[in-house]
Each structure stands twice: as C-alpha cells, then as structure tokens.
C-alpha cells in the first residue's frame, strides 16, 4: 500500500517525525526492527550536558559547530519539538516538567546526580534542589527487584551532603514468586491491594523518620503512572519520586506509548518487527541525488516491499543498531546502505584510554546530511533527494558524551516532520 511518508525506526526521533507528517494530513507508516532505545533509556529528555542554561548552550553550540545536528535542525525546532512532545505526554496523562532554560539534577540508581532537562512529573520531587531543602529523604526498594539498592543509593547521596536513608520494603503477597523485572512491578503497582500494602509500610517509615519525600524505583505503573504516584503519596503522607532503573525502562516504555498514541490518533500506523534491509532507487535523474521509491523489510519466506514518496531514516547509531561494524573494519548503515562518515580506519575508532576526555571517534560516526537533513556522500553530494536522516544515525555528534541523545532526536525528528 502506498504511503506519503515512511519512517524507519520507532525511537523518539522517528516517532516525532512520523507524528509531524501525520499531523500534516499525510498517510504515514513507521517500520521498525523492534522496540527502540526508548526502552533502554531513562525516560528523561537530556538536551546538553553544559551548565545551567541548556537551550543557551545549544544555541552557542549550533553557532560553533555548523555540522552538529543541533545546528542543522536549529534551536527553534528543538523548542517547538519539546512543546509537541510535552503535549503528547500530557494527552497521555503523563506530564513532563522542566524548562529548556534550566538543568535539573536527578538521582540515578547509583545515587549519583545526573543532569537532564525535561522529566516525568513522577520523578520531579527527587530533583537535587528539593533534596537539599534540609528535610530528610527516604529511598525505598524491594530486594526482589534486582539492581536497585536503597542503602547504596542513600549512602552515595549522603556523601554528597543530602539527608537520605535507605530501606528495603517487604514484598506484599502476590501470585508471583520468582520473576520480578521492572515491567512485572509496573503491573503489580497498578493493583490497588499491592499499593495499599506498600503504602502502609511507607506511611510507617514516614511517621517514624519524618521523611518529606520517598524515592522508589521507576516501576510505579505503566499506563497509569500519574495515578499510581498520586495514590502512593496519599497513602504514605510524603512526596513520592521515581528513580530510573536498569533496562527494561518503564519510563522509557511510557514515553514510547505516549508518542505511539499521539501518532495513531493522527492516523499514522506502526509495523514493529520489520527490519528494513535495503532500498530501491528510481533511475530518474533529479540533479539533486536519486529518488528512493521503495524499501524492503525482512519477512517470512520473502521480503515485503513498501512504497512511499518521502522517507525518514531514524534507525539510531552504533548503540541503536542503525550502524553496524562489519568484520572488514567498516561501518555500515543497515537500512539503505548510505555512506557513513566515520574515522578512516578501524585503528582510529577508539581512543587509547577508555575514559578519554574527548570521547571515542567512532561514536561520532554517522550519516552526514545537508541543511534539509538529506544524506550526503563523501564528496558532499546529496544521495537521495527525498530522504531525511534524524536522531542517533546522524554524524557529527557523540550523543552519550555530550548528553544530547534525546534533544537531538526531538529537534531533528520535529524538523523532519515539518520539512
């Protein structure tokens, strides 16, 4: 079936682009190999790890590094994209709080403080300015949830000068006895009787310790998180905040659901589990690169062909699976085989030191694009006139080290939705 726009990749960048196109009245399909990096990340929106005014820092960065995705998309696209994302989360009953002009510091599951910008309201009460108000904080968890250690989190926060204690709660009786991943907890927390028992234990701790707020692992409901947190606050008699866990990330899945719902409401469709492995160009000469007419996704017994007028590539970088290292020592873009801008040889991928100040060159590899986000070859010529590349697949930035993974995804995804 023919679409106006097909987006490849279902992370933040791809869904933002798809939403933008669908809201312009286009027929839109999202193709993705599986669930995206949303489910691996914290569920917060980082813009740039650079001081108190992230948007100001983005504007300065854009002026200094014209090849940076922020420079190509523009700070205005970032601001408007953030507004659209907030509206989608708001509509899903899962508001995000924060301002692009202010950096927030939130505790991690290690008890470190991590800079970010927009956070779900369910995490807001853990912001460092609140932790520093002199009133004590409790971090609580359950032994059955792996990789979340309240005493360690509390000790690390105390070492940074905050008044924090850590306790384990008793697991309320459930029909489960073995498996307690984050998503299982999220479902348990949506049950009233489970919350009631947790709430009773928290109220007891709050009464004895005089805690103003309680930090819990970010597993407090999947579809009804705001409601779960409100209910626990009432029961505990203290503010509740969530701390991101190791994957699978429940807040990440909520973000995915909010964008998915917005896209479906705008008439867009998603096809998850379909790995795009090649494209088909028309032989028509445009003077500005070839025209991509179809892509092929892997399917049972034979490929499925998908046709569209316009395309958005949002498959991520090395971590997201959009770029793969071949045994030949080359990086390959997996969906369309686009030219990858990368260090000239395998030996230059990594700096000698693991924690090298400047990061590792390979993590800035990606697809070079022009101002309209169209892919370029090594000589700077447009490869496809009707393809936009967004998010982690782009060259010229190191998303993790710069702390701008989500911000770039929002800015470029939003921009591709408006082109």
């Amino acid at each position, binding site marked *: 079936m023919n679409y106006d726009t097909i987006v490849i990749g279902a992370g933040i960048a791809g869904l933002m682009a798809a939403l933008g196109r669908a809201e312009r009245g286009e027929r839109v399909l999202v193709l993705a190999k599986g*669930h995206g*990096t949303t489910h691996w990340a914290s569920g917060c929106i980082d813009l740039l790890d650079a001081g108190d005014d992230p948007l100001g820092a983005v504007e300065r960065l854009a002026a200094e590094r014209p090849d940076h995705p922020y420079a190509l998309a523009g700070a205005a696209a970032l601001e408007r994209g953030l507004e659209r994302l907030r509206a989608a989360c708001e509509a899903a009953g899962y508001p995000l709080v924060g301002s692009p002009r202010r950096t927030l510091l939130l505790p991690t599951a290690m008890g470190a403080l991590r800079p970010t910008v927009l956070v779900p309201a369910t995490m807001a009460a853990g912001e460092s300015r609140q932790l520093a108000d002199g009133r004590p904080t409790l971090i609580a968890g359950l032994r059955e949830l792996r990789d979340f250690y309240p005493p360690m989190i509390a000790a690390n926060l105390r070492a940074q000068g905050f008044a924090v204690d850590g306790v384990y709660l008793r697991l309320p009786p459930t029909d489960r006895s*073995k498996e307690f991943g984050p*998503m299982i907890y999220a479902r348990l927390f949506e049950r009233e009787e489970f919350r009631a028992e947790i709430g009773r234990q928290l109220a007891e701790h709050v009464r004895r310790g005089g805690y103003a707020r309680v930090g819990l692992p970010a597993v407090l409901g999947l579809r009804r998180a705001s409601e779960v947190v409100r209910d626990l606050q009432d029961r505990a008699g203290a503010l509740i905040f969530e701390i991101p866990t190791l994957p699978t990330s429940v807040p990440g899945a909520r973000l995915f659901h909010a964008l998915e719902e917005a896209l479906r409401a705008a008439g867009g469709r998603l096809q998850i*589990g379909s790995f795009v492995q090649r494209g088909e160009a028309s032989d028509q000469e445009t003077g500005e690169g070839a025209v991509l007419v179809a892509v092929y996704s892997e*399917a049972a*017994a034979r490929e499925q062909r998908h046709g569209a007028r316009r395309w958005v590539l949002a498959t991520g970088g090395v971590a997201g699976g959009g770029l793969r290292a071949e045994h030949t020592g080359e990086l390959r873009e997996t969906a369309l085989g686009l030219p990858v801008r990368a260090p000239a040889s395998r030996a230059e991928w990594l700096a000698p030191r693991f924690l090298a100040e400047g990061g590792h060159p390979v993590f800035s590899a990606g697809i070079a694009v022009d101002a309209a986000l169209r892919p370029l070859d090594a000589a700077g010529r447009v490869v496809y006139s009707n393809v936009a590349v967004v998010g982690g697949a782009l060259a010229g930035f190191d998303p993790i080290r710069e702390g701008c993974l989500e911000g770039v995804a929002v800015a470029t995804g939003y921009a591709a939705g408006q082109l």
Partner: protein
Amino acid sequence: MIDHIELSLTQSLDHCIKCNICTAACPVAAVTDKFPGPKYVGPQAQRFRHDRQPSPDSSVDYCSGCRVCNQVCPTGVRIAELNARARGQIVAERGMPLRNRLIARSELIGRLSCGPHAPLVNFGLSFKPARWLIDLVMKIHRDAPLPRASTYSFRSWFKRRRRTADRRPSAVSPSSEKRQVVYFHGCSTNYYEPRVGKAAVAVLERNGFEVILAEQNCCGLPLISNGDFATARKYHEANVRKLLPYVRQGIPVVGTSTSCTLTLKEEAPEILGLTSDDVLAVAKGTYDIFEFLRELAERDELNTEFRPLERELPYHPPCQYRAHRLGRPVLDVLSLVPGLKLMESRADCCGIAGTYGLKTEKYQIAMDVGAGLFEFVRGSGAELALCDSETCRWQITHATGVPSQHPIEILAEAYGIER
C-alpha cells in the same frame, strides 16, 4: 552436515544484550511465573544446551510460541525459534505425553469427527460429564474451546461442486486462459469450518482465478509446537511433494489459515531445519490469502466492485499473522470496502496459541493472557469479531460469547456472494 539454521540461531545469541525488552513484552510471563520469560529460556538457557546432554530446564514448555519476543527484540535475536527447538529437544529426550500426541494430530481428529455423525461427536464433546472425564484422564481442560465438527468436509463440497460444474461446462470457462491458484485449506477449514473455504474460493474466483484443490495434508504446526519434530518433518515433506509441481509452474499456493501458511513459509523450514531447494521453493510460493489479495491491490488488479457494508467490527491480528511480518494486510484490503470500519485490537495474544490453551495446566494462563483482548471484543459492542486464525476465533468466542469469522467471509459478503 552443518545445520545452517542452527548456526544462525546460535550466532543470534550473541546479539542478545540482556535488555529484557522481550520479557517485558511477553504476554505469558506477564500473567504467570511458571514461565520465567523469553530471555531466560531462550538466549540465556541456550548457553547450557548441548547435544548429548540433558536439557537443563523444562520451563520452556510454558512458552506459547506467540513470537511477541521476536517482534520487539531490538537486536534481532530469534528467541521463538530457539524456544521451539529447545522444546523439541526435551521431547526427543523424554518422549511426548499421550495427550500432546493426540491433540497434535489435528488432521486425524478432524477426519474422525467430520461427517454425517458430527452432531453426535459435537454433543459428546459438549456433554459436561464427558469433558470432566477427558479432563481427568487426558488433561484437556473441561472448559477449553474445542471446535464443532462439520457434517461435510470442505474437500467433499469442492468436489461435488466441480462435478456439478462439469455437467454445465459454461459455468466454468476452460482453464487454459485463467490464472490459477492452489488453495491450501488446512485441517480446520476442511473438517470444522468449510464456510471459510467456500468464501475463499468465491473471492478468488471473483478475481478471475481458477482455484485448484491440490492434494495436501496437515501442515504439521501442532506437532512442531508440541515438539514432535520427527513426525512434523514427514508431514512437511509430504506437503512439499504434493505442492511442488504447482509451485514449479509458477502457480501460487494461497491459504486462509495464517498458521498453516506461516508453517509452509517459514516455521517448518526453519524450526525443523529443512533447507532443500524444494522446501524453499514451496516456502517462496506460499501466501496468506490477504497477503495475496493485497499484492493484487498494489498492482491494481484487485476486483473492487464491493457493495457498501455499513458495519463496525473488532479485528484481532493473530500472533501467527504478525509473525509473517507483513503489517496488517487485512486492514489494508478491507479498508477498500465502502462503509466497513475495523477496530484493530492492540492485544498481543488471545492466549490459545494453537493447542496450548487446551491443556489443563495451561488453560487459565491462556485465559489470563487473552483477558485484554476479550475486554476489547466485549467492549466493542459488536455482534461479530474478526480474526484470521481458527483457534484464536474459537478462543475469542469461548471467552466472550461473541461469534467470530475469518475476514475472508466479510470480503465475500462485500462482493455480494451468497452463501
């Protein structure tokens, strides 16, 4: 001989980054911890499975084979295939319980039940004391949805019809000019629901095809999912022998049972490790009927002389259809029928998974897995639900009381075909 499929499965293990997205999405792990989740029994336990060594863990038997794990995996690990093979290894070691041996022979049971005596069989199987006894002795759950046998088989209807047509040569034009398709009806259409096959034949004929009723046998899926690979291999090889002459002539094989077509296309070759050219030719030549019709529509060859159907119906895309990785061919094709509106179910699975939900120890798990779907169907208020897979239809009707049909029956109605 190197088993290339085994090799690719083993290599796909190394793509697992333990993110647990599969466990978070698994509909079985969500409702019971008898199944610890796809990551554990798949890529993790696989490290401990070796030839000539006993299987380390039997919890893989609680995998329903729905393949949601494959669909959401961001790194392309082939979890469902690993699980199917692990179950096969357990059965090879320990043998197969009599109950599983019986319910895996859907063709034999169908042949024994179908015919003029069907009302007697149906009465017997709806007679509560008999079901209690079967539950007690055979461990087939007394409430599990068993299909009602037909008083005539689809094949007998087709042959009768052809004989009638032969006497009136003008009714069917000479075949030489006509495009031909082979119809793969599967056991359920043949013995329980001939109406599905009648609708399929009528729709294909409306599109100018001559329908050939090739010799065929059970696709072997119930044997695969119960772990009897040796017998399943024989079944599949027999089907390949019977279908190959048509496929070699370029005549497509089209089926209405999504699980049969998936078995011919992929499950049998991959899980059973059958890789001959003949097997692959049959795989490549097989289509689910809506996949086939959608391809006609994409080439503007679909007969679209539909009469309007002012109906709004819930549609559940079964797991086995999603495993074809083709999107939603039913929605694409039925969207061409004026007035008809389908509400797409977003539930992962109905729970039944072929024979899984019939088993006494798994019946409740299957009902819990399907709870979201049942709520959706009941909440729709519609008098009819649509689903491509027969066992899913029986499960939906069992749980909700809402009658269910194959989407091809609605399409036949849209063509104004009297039945």
